[in-house]
Protein backbone atom coordinates (compact mmCIF):
# COMPACT_ATOMS: atom_id res chain seq x y z
CA UNK A 1 0.00 0.00 0.00
CA UNK A 2 1.58 3.29 -1.14
CA UNK A 3 0.79 6.28 1.05
CA UNK A 4 1.41 10.02 0.79
CA UNK A 5 2.56 12.43 3.49
CA UNK A 6 -0.97 13.80 3.96
CA UNK A 7 -2.57 10.63 5.29
CA UNK A 8 -3.19 10.16 9.02
CA UNK A 9 -2.11 6.75 10.31
CA UNK A 10 -3.84 5.28 13.34
CA UNK A 11 -2.85 2.44 15.65
CA UNK A 12 -5.17 -0.56 15.27
CA UNK A 13 -7.18 -1.45 18.39
CA UNK A 14 -6.26 -5.09 17.88
CA UNK A 15 -2.60 -4.38 18.59
CA UNK A 16 -1.21 -4.38 22.10
CA UNK A 17 2.02 -2.49 22.65
CA UNK A 18 4.32 -2.87 25.60
CA UNK A 19 7.95 -2.29 26.53
CA UNK A 20 10.36 -5.18 25.99
CA UNK A 21 13.74 -4.27 27.42
CA UNK A 22 15.01 -1.25 25.49
CA UNK A 23 12.56 -1.87 22.65
CA UNK A 24 8.81 -1.75 22.20
CA UNK A 25 6.90 -4.87 21.28
CA UNK A 26 3.68 -4.96 19.28
CA UNK A 27 1.39 -7.96 19.59
CA UNK A 28 -1.33 -8.26 16.97
CA UNK A 29 -3.97 -10.03 19.04
CA UNK A 30 -6.01 -11.39 16.14
CA UNK A 31 -3.09 -12.61 14.06
CA UNK A 32 -0.90 -13.71 16.95
CA UNK A 33 2.08 -11.91 15.43
CA UNK A 34 4.73 -9.97 17.31
CA UNK A 35 6.86 -7.07 16.08
CA UNK A 36 9.85 -5.52 17.80
CA UNK A 37 10.27 -1.77 17.28
CA UNK A 38 13.46 0.21 17.64
CA UNK A 39 13.38 3.61 19.30
CA UNK A 40 12.47 5.56 16.16
CA UNK A 41 9.74 3.12 15.12
CA UNK A 42 8.35 3.16 18.66
CA UNK A 43 8.30 6.96 18.53
CA UNK A 44 6.41 6.89 15.24
CA UNK A 45 4.00 4.29 16.63
CA UNK A 46 3.24 6.60 19.54
CA UNK A 47 2.38 9.43 17.15
CA UNK A 48 -0.07 7.45 15.04
CA UNK A 49 -3.13 8.87 16.76
CA UNK A 50 -5.33 9.46 13.72
CA UNK A 51 -4.82 13.24 13.93
CA UNK A 52 -1.22 13.73 12.82
CA UNK A 53 -0.34 13.28 9.17
CA UNK A 54 2.79 11.42 8.10
CA UNK A 55 4.35 14.81 7.33
CA UNK A 56 3.57 15.96 10.90
CA UNK A 57 5.07 12.76 12.29
CA UNK A 58 8.20 13.08 10.16
CA UNK A 59 8.70 16.63 11.43
CA UNK A 60 8.55 15.32 14.99
CA UNK A 61 10.99 12.51 14.16
CA UNK A 62 13.44 15.00 12.66
CA UNK A 63 13.18 17.17 15.73
CA UNK A 64 13.48 14.32 18.25
CA UNK A 65 16.25 12.30 16.56
CA UNK A 66 18.12 14.95 14.55
CA UNK A 67 18.00 12.94 11.32
CA UNK A 68 17.98 14.08 7.70
CA UNK A 69 14.38 15.04 6.75
CA UNK A 70 14.53 13.32 3.36
CA UNK A 71 15.79 10.08 4.85
CA UNK A 72 13.27 10.34 7.71
CA UNK A 73 10.40 10.86 5.26
CA UNK A 74 11.37 7.85 3.16
CA UNK A 75 12.01 5.59 6.14
CA UNK A 76 8.82 6.63 7.93
CA UNK A 77 6.69 6.02 4.86
CA UNK A 78 8.31 2.66 4.27
CA UNK A 79 7.73 1.59 7.88
CA UNK A 80 4.14 2.89 7.98
CA UNK A 81 3.36 1.07 4.74
CA UNK A 82 4.67 -2.16 6.21
CA UNK A 83 2.56 -1.65 9.34
CA UNK A 84 -0.50 -0.94 7.20
CA UNK A 85 0.15 -4.17 5.27
CA UNK A 86 0.35 -6.13 8.50
CA UNK A 87 -2.85 -4.45 9.82
CA UNK A 88 -1.07 -2.96 12.81
CA UNK A 89 -1.97 0.49 11.50
CA UNK A 90 -4.92 1.76 9.56
CA UNK A 91 -5.68 5.12 8.02
CA UNK A 92 -7.92 7.49 9.96
CA UNK A 93 -11.18 8.08 8.15
CA UNK A 94 -10.41 5.17 5.88
Amino acid at each position, binding site marked *: MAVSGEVRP*LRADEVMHFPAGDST*CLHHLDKGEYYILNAVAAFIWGQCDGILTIDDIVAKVVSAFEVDPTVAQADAIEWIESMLSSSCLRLAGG
Partner: protein
Amino acid sequence: MRVKELQFELPTRLLATRPRELAGERRDNARLLVLCRKTGGIEHRRFHDLVEYVNPGDTIILNDSRTINAHLFGDVEGLGRLEFQLRCYKGAGVWQAECRPWRDPVPGARINFGPSLTAVVEGIRPEIPLWIMRFPDRPDFEDLLAELGRPIMSPYVDRVYGAEFYNTVYARTPGSAEMPAAGRHFTPELLDALTAKGVRMGYITLHTGLSSIDIQTEDVEKHKMLEEWYSVPEETSELLTETKKAGTRVFIVGTTVMRCLESAAGEDGRVAPGDHWTNLYIYPGYRFKVADAFITNFHGPKSTRIALAAAFAGTELVLRGYRQAIEREYLFYEFGDATLTI
Protein backbone atom coordinates in the same frame (compact mmCIF):
# COMPACT_ATOMS: atom_id res chain seq x y z
CA MET B 1 15.20 -5.77 52.91
CA ARG B 2 16.74 -5.33 49.46
CA VAL B 3 14.40 -5.92 46.53
CA LYS B 4 17.05 -8.12 44.90
CA GLU B 5 16.41 -10.66 47.68
CA LEU B 6 13.03 -11.23 45.97
CA GLN B 7 14.64 -11.75 42.59
CA PHE B 8 14.66 -15.05 40.69
CA GLU B 9 14.99 -16.10 37.07
CA LEU B 10 11.60 -16.76 35.54
CA PRO B 11 11.79 -18.44 32.11
CA THR B 12 9.29 -16.89 29.70
CA ARG B 13 8.02 -20.34 28.73
CA LEU B 14 6.49 -20.56 32.21
CA LEU B 15 4.22 -17.54 31.74
CA ALA B 16 0.71 -18.94 31.32
CA THR B 17 -0.49 -17.62 27.98
CA ARG B 18 -4.09 -18.84 28.04
CA PRO B 19 -6.80 -20.19 30.36
CA ARG B 20 -6.30 -23.89 31.05
CA GLU B 21 -9.94 -24.72 30.29
CA LEU B 22 -9.21 -24.08 26.60
CA ALA B 23 -7.12 -27.24 26.69
CA GLY B 24 -10.06 -29.13 28.16
CA GLU B 25 -8.67 -28.94 31.67
CA ARG B 26 -10.70 -28.06 34.75
CA ARG B 27 -9.73 -24.93 36.61
CA ASP B 28 -9.22 -26.90 39.82
CA ASN B 29 -6.73 -29.18 38.08
CA ALA B 30 -4.10 -26.44 38.32
CA ARG B 31 -0.93 -27.55 40.05
CA LEU B 32 -0.62 -26.67 43.71
CA LEU B 33 2.70 -26.05 45.43
CA VAL B 34 2.18 -26.64 49.15
CA LEU B 35 4.55 -24.91 51.55
CA CYS B 36 4.53 -25.98 55.18
CA ARG B 37 5.73 -23.23 57.50
CA LYS B 38 6.13 -25.56 60.48
CA THR B 39 8.32 -28.17 58.81
CA GLY B 40 9.71 -26.26 55.85
CA GLY B 41 8.40 -29.10 53.73
CA ILE B 42 7.22 -28.74 50.14
CA GLU B 43 4.63 -30.87 48.38
CA HIS B 44 3.49 -30.93 44.77
CA ARG B 45 -0.24 -31.46 44.38
CA ARG B 46 -3.28 -30.38 42.35
CA PHE B 47 -5.59 -27.56 43.38
CA HIS B 48 -8.53 -29.89 44.00
CA ASP B 49 -6.38 -31.62 46.65
CA LEU B 50 -7.10 -28.57 48.80
CA VAL B 51 -9.91 -30.70 50.27
CA GLU B 52 -7.22 -32.82 51.94
CA TYR B 53 -5.65 -29.81 53.66
CA VAL B 54 -8.77 -28.43 55.33
CA ASN B 55 -10.56 -29.62 58.45
CA PRO B 56 -14.22 -29.35 59.44
CA GLY B 57 -14.83 -25.94 60.94
CA ASP B 58 -12.13 -24.21 58.92
CA THR B 59 -13.18 -21.08 57.05
CA ILE B 60 -12.19 -20.03 53.54
CA ILE B 61 -12.44 -16.33 52.68
CA LEU B 62 -12.92 -15.39 49.03
CA ASN B 63 -13.00 -12.09 47.14
CA ASP B 64 -16.28 -11.81 45.21
CA SER B 65 -15.16 -8.80 43.15
CA ARG B 66 -16.04 -9.19 39.48
CA THR B 67 -13.54 -8.18 36.81
CA ILE B 68 -14.87 -5.54 34.44
CA ASN B 69 -13.86 -4.78 30.86
CA ALA B 70 -11.58 -1.98 32.00
CA HIS B 71 -9.55 -1.63 28.80
CA LEU B 72 -11.08 0.93 26.45
CA PHE B 73 -10.16 2.94 23.37
CA GLY B 74 -11.30 6.52 23.19
CA ASP B 75 -11.10 9.42 20.77
CA VAL B 76 -9.93 12.42 22.77
CA GLU B 77 -10.59 15.96 21.58
CA GLY B 78 -7.31 17.35 20.26
CA LEU B 79 -5.27 14.24 21.10
CA GLY B 80 -6.67 11.54 18.84
CA ARG B 81 -7.27 7.92 19.67
CA LEU B 82 -5.75 6.63 22.90
CA GLU B 83 -5.96 3.51 25.06
CA PHE B 84 -7.24 3.69 28.61
CA GLN B 85 -7.21 1.23 31.47
CA LEU B 86 -9.69 2.12 34.18
CA ARG B 87 -7.86 1.49 37.43
CA CYS B 88 -9.64 3.04 40.36
CA TYR B 89 -13.25 4.15 40.85
CA LYS B 90 -13.64 7.13 43.14
CA GLY B 91 -17.43 7.40 43.07
CA ALA B 92 -19.88 9.70 41.27
CA GLY B 93 -18.68 8.49 37.87
CA VAL B 94 -15.04 9.46 38.46
CA TRP B 95 -12.36 6.99 37.39
CA GLN B 96 -8.60 7.17 37.44
CA ALA B 97 -7.16 5.56 34.32
CA GLU B 98 -3.84 4.71 32.71
CA CYS B 99 -3.35 6.33 29.30
CA ARG B 100 -1.31 4.66 26.53
CA PRO B 101 0.67 5.99 24.86
CA TRP B 102 0.99 8.69 27.47
CA ARG B 103 -0.32 12.15 26.73
CA ASP B 104 -0.82 14.94 29.24
CA PRO B 105 -4.54 15.18 29.91
CA VAL B 106 -6.37 18.34 28.89
CA PRO B 107 -8.99 19.21 31.51
CA GLY B 108 -12.41 19.68 29.96
CA ALA B 109 -11.64 17.60 26.87
CA ARG B 110 -14.25 15.01 25.95
CA ILE B 111 -13.38 11.38 25.36
CA ASN B 112 -15.61 9.46 23.01
CA PHE B 113 -15.49 5.73 23.74
CA GLY B 114 -18.30 4.87 21.36
CA PRO B 115 -21.70 6.11 20.30
CA SER B 116 -23.14 5.59 23.76
CA LEU B 117 -20.31 6.41 26.14
CA THR B 118 -18.35 9.59 26.69
CA ALA B 119 -16.33 11.02 29.55
CA VAL B 120 -14.86 14.40 30.41
CA VAL B 121 -11.23 14.81 31.45
CA GLU B 122 -10.89 16.31 34.92
CA GLY B 123 -7.14 16.27 35.43
CA ILE B 124 -4.15 14.16 36.35
CA ARG B 125 -3.02 12.10 39.33
CA PRO B 126 0.64 12.97 38.92
CA GLU B 127 2.49 10.47 41.09
CA ILE B 128 1.59 7.38 39.03
CA PRO B 129 0.53 9.07 36.59
CA LEU B 130 -3.16 8.53 35.81
CA TRP B 131 -5.83 10.53 34.04
CA ILE B 132 -8.86 11.54 36.07
CA MET B 133 -12.06 11.37 34.04
CA ARG B 134 -15.74 11.64 34.80
CA PHE B 135 -18.33 9.38 33.19
CA PRO B 136 -22.04 10.01 33.40
CA ASP B 137 -23.23 8.15 36.50
CA ARG B 138 -25.52 5.68 34.79
CA PRO B 139 -26.83 2.28 35.89
CA ASP B 140 -25.89 0.53 32.63
CA PHE B 141 -22.22 1.57 32.88
CA GLU B 142 -20.94 -1.98 33.33
CA ASP B 143 -23.02 -3.17 30.37
CA LEU B 144 -21.46 -0.44 28.24
CA LEU B 145 -18.01 -1.52 29.35
CA ALA B 146 -18.89 -5.10 28.47
CA GLU B 147 -19.88 -3.94 25.00
CA LEU B 148 -17.10 -1.45 24.30
CA GLY B 149 -14.15 -2.70 26.34
CA ARG B 150 -12.14 -5.79 26.97
CA PRO B 151 -10.41 -7.17 30.07
CA ILE B 152 -6.99 -5.73 30.84
CA MET B 153 -4.53 -8.22 29.40
CA SER B 154 -1.01 -9.09 30.38
CA PRO B 155 1.49 -8.86 27.50
CA TYR B 156 2.24 -12.58 27.56
CA VAL B 157 -1.40 -13.66 27.09
CA ASP B 158 -1.74 -14.90 23.53
CA ARG B 159 -5.01 -13.21 22.53
CA VAL B 160 -8.10 -11.47 23.87
CA TYR B 161 -10.23 -13.67 26.10
CA GLY B 162 -13.69 -12.69 27.27
CA ALA B 163 -14.55 -11.54 30.77
CA GLU B 164 -15.77 -15.03 31.70
CA PHE B 165 -12.16 -16.24 31.69
CA TYR B 166 -11.16 -13.37 33.96
CA ASN B 167 -13.71 -14.12 36.65
CA THR B 168 -14.12 -16.59 39.46
CA VAL B 169 -17.20 -18.78 39.57
CA TYR B 170 -18.41 -16.82 42.61
CA ALA B 171 -17.72 -13.28 41.32
CA ARG B 172 -20.71 -11.00 41.80
CA THR B 173 -19.71 -7.41 42.64
CA PRO B 174 -18.36 -5.62 39.54
CA GLY B 175 -15.35 -3.35 39.93
CA SER B 176 -11.96 -5.03 39.57
CA ALA B 177 -9.64 -3.80 36.85
CA GLU B 178 -7.56 -6.98 37.12
CA MET B 179 -8.71 -10.43 38.08
CA PRO B 180 -8.35 -11.51 41.71
CA ALA B 181 -6.67 -14.57 40.25
CA ALA B 182 -6.18 -16.96 43.16
CA GLY B 183 -9.90 -17.66 43.25
CA ARG B 184 -10.00 -18.65 39.58
CA HIS B 185 -9.01 -22.20 40.53
CA PHE B 186 -12.24 -22.86 42.43
CA THR B 187 -14.95 -24.79 40.62
CA PRO B 188 -18.53 -25.40 41.80
CA GLU B 189 -17.53 -29.04 42.40
CA LEU B 190 -14.60 -28.07 44.58
CA LEU B 191 -16.67 -25.57 46.55
CA ASP B 192 -19.28 -28.32 47.10
CA ALA B 193 -16.61 -30.78 48.24
CA LEU B 194 -15.20 -28.26 50.70
CA THR B 195 -18.66 -27.48 52.06
CA ALA B 196 -19.41 -31.18 52.37
CA LYS B 197 -16.30 -31.54 54.48
CA GLY B 198 -17.62 -28.94 56.91
CA VAL B 199 -15.65 -25.95 55.65
CA ARG B 200 -17.43 -22.62 55.74
CA MET B 201 -17.10 -19.93 53.05
CA GLY B 202 -17.06 -16.22 53.64
CA TYR B 203 -16.79 -13.36 51.18
CA ILE B 204 -15.27 -9.91 51.07
CA THR B 205 -15.05 -7.48 48.16
CA LEU B 206 -11.83 -5.76 47.16
CA HIS B 207 -11.64 -4.14 43.75
CA THR B 208 -8.16 -4.53 42.29
CA GLY B 209 -6.62 -1.80 40.21
CA LEU B 210 -3.57 -0.13 41.65
CA SER B 211 -1.80 -2.79 43.72
CA SER B 212 -0.16 -4.53 40.78
CA ILE B 213 2.51 -1.87 40.32
CA ASP B 214 5.91 -3.50 40.79
CA ILE B 215 8.45 -2.36 43.35
CA GLN B 216 10.72 0.25 41.75
CA THR B 217 12.75 1.12 44.83
CA GLU B 218 15.90 -0.72 45.90
CA ASP B 219 14.56 -1.28 49.39
CA VAL B 220 11.34 -3.27 49.74
CA GLU B 221 10.17 -1.04 52.60
CA LYS B 222 10.38 2.17 50.56
CA HIS B 223 7.74 1.15 48.02
CA LYS B 224 4.41 2.94 48.43
CA MET B 225 1.31 0.84 47.91
CA LEU B 226 -1.65 2.63 46.35
CA GLU B 227 -5.19 2.54 47.62
CA GLU B 228 -7.91 0.05 46.78
CA TRP B 229 -11.49 -0.10 48.01
CA TYR B 230 -12.78 -3.02 50.06
CA SER B 231 -15.87 -4.12 51.93
CA VAL B 232 -16.23 -6.65 54.75
CA PRO B 233 -19.84 -7.74 55.26
CA GLU B 234 -21.20 -8.19 58.78
CA GLU B 235 -21.70 -11.94 58.25
CA THR B 236 -18.06 -12.40 57.21
CA SER B 237 -16.89 -10.50 60.27
CA GLU B 238 -19.04 -12.77 62.47
CA LEU B 239 -17.85 -15.90 60.68
CA LEU B 240 -14.23 -14.94 61.31
CA THR B 241 -14.92 -14.23 64.96
CA GLU B 242 -16.61 -17.63 65.34
CA THR B 243 -13.74 -19.37 63.56
CA LYS B 244 -11.12 -17.81 65.80
CA LYS B 245 -13.19 -18.56 68.90
CA ALA B 246 -13.54 -22.21 67.84
CA GLY B 247 -9.79 -22.48 67.31
CA THR B 248 -10.17 -23.58 63.69
CA ARG B 249 -8.29 -22.03 60.80
CA VAL B 250 -8.84 -19.18 58.38
CA PHE B 251 -7.75 -19.87 54.80
CA ILE B 252 -7.17 -16.69 52.82
CA VAL B 253 -7.61 -16.86 49.05
CA GLY B 254 -5.46 -14.30 47.30
CA THR B 255 -3.44 -11.24 48.15
CA THR B 256 -6.58 -9.10 47.86
CA VAL B 257 -8.32 -10.98 50.66
CA MET B 258 -5.16 -10.89 52.75
CA ARG B 259 -4.79 -7.13 52.41
CA CYS B 260 -8.49 -6.58 53.05
CA LEU B 261 -8.71 -8.65 56.24
CA GLU B 262 -5.40 -7.49 57.64
CA SER B 263 -6.55 -3.90 57.04
CA ALA B 264 -9.87 -4.48 58.75
CA ALA B 265 -8.43 -6.38 61.73
CA GLY B 266 -7.69 -4.80 65.06
CA GLU B 267 -4.69 -5.72 67.19
CA ASP B 268 -6.82 -8.45 68.80
CA GLY B 269 -7.36 -10.01 65.36
CA ARG B 270 -11.05 -9.15 65.25
CA VAL B 271 -12.11 -8.14 61.74
CA ALA B 272 -14.48 -5.19 61.72
CA PRO B 273 -17.22 -5.00 59.11
CA GLY B 274 -17.45 -1.97 56.86
CA ASP B 275 -16.29 -0.28 53.66
CA HIS B 276 -12.88 1.37 53.50
CA TRP B 277 -9.84 2.14 51.35
CA THR B 278 -6.58 0.35 52.06
CA ASN B 279 -3.01 0.99 51.00
CA LEU B 280 -1.68 -1.70 53.30
CA TYR B 281 1.62 -3.04 52.04
CA ILE B 282 2.67 -6.36 53.49
CA TYR B 283 6.31 -7.40 53.24
CA PRO B 284 8.66 -9.60 55.28
CA GLY B 285 8.54 -8.69 58.94
CA TYR B 286 4.79 -8.09 58.97
CA ARG B 287 2.86 -9.73 61.85
CA PHE B 288 -0.31 -11.39 60.56
CA LYS B 289 -3.46 -11.06 62.63
CA VAL B 290 -6.02 -13.15 60.77
CA ALA B 291 -4.56 -15.65 58.30
CA ASP B 292 -3.70 -19.23 59.21
CA ALA B 293 -3.26 -20.47 55.65
CA PHE B 294 -2.79 -18.65 52.37
CA ILE B 295 -3.62 -19.56 48.79
CA THR B 296 -2.10 -17.43 46.05
CA ASN B 297 -0.82 -17.75 42.51
CA PHE B 298 2.81 -17.60 41.41
CA HIS B 299 4.04 -14.04 41.28
CA GLY B 300 6.81 -12.30 39.43
CA PRO B 301 10.17 -11.34 40.92
CA LYS B 302 10.39 -8.02 42.76
CA SER B 303 6.59 -7.71 42.99
CA THR B 304 4.58 -6.58 45.99
CA ARG B 305 2.73 -9.87 45.78
CA ILE B 306 5.81 -12.02 46.21
CA ALA B 307 6.79 -9.72 49.07
CA LEU B 308 3.46 -10.58 50.68
CA ALA B 309 3.91 -14.30 50.03
CA ALA B 310 7.40 -14.10 51.54
CA ALA B 311 6.03 -12.26 54.56
CA PHE B 312 3.58 -15.10 55.23
CA ALA B 313 5.67 -18.14 54.38
CA GLY B 314 9.17 -16.82 54.98
CA THR B 315 11.44 -15.64 52.18
CA GLU B 316 13.66 -18.74 52.19
CA LEU B 317 10.72 -21.14 51.98
CA VAL B 318 8.97 -19.20 49.23
CA LEU B 319 12.07 -18.90 47.07
CA ARG B 320 12.95 -22.57 47.65
CA GLY B 321 9.39 -23.48 46.65
CA TYR B 322 9.58 -21.26 43.57
CA ARG B 323 12.88 -22.89 42.56
CA GLN B 324 11.26 -26.32 42.71
CA ALA B 325 8.20 -25.01 40.86
CA ILE B 326 10.37 -23.59 38.07
CA GLU B 327 12.31 -26.87 37.81
CA ARG B 328 8.98 -28.70 37.52
CA GLU B 329 7.59 -26.24 34.97
CA TYR B 330 4.74 -24.78 37.01
CA LEU B 331 2.97 -21.91 35.23
CA PHE B 332 2.99 -18.35 36.53
CA TYR B 333 0.56 -15.48 36.80
CA GLU B 334 -3.19 -15.15 36.33
CA PHE B 335 -3.81 -18.25 34.20
CA GLY B 336 -1.11 -20.29 35.89
CA ASP B 337 -0.80 -22.55 38.92
CA ALA B 338 -1.20 -21.92 42.64
CA THR B 339 0.52 -22.11 45.99
CA LEU B 340 -0.88 -23.05 49.38
CA THR B 341 1.03 -22.05 52.49
CA ILE B 342 -0.05 -23.75 55.69
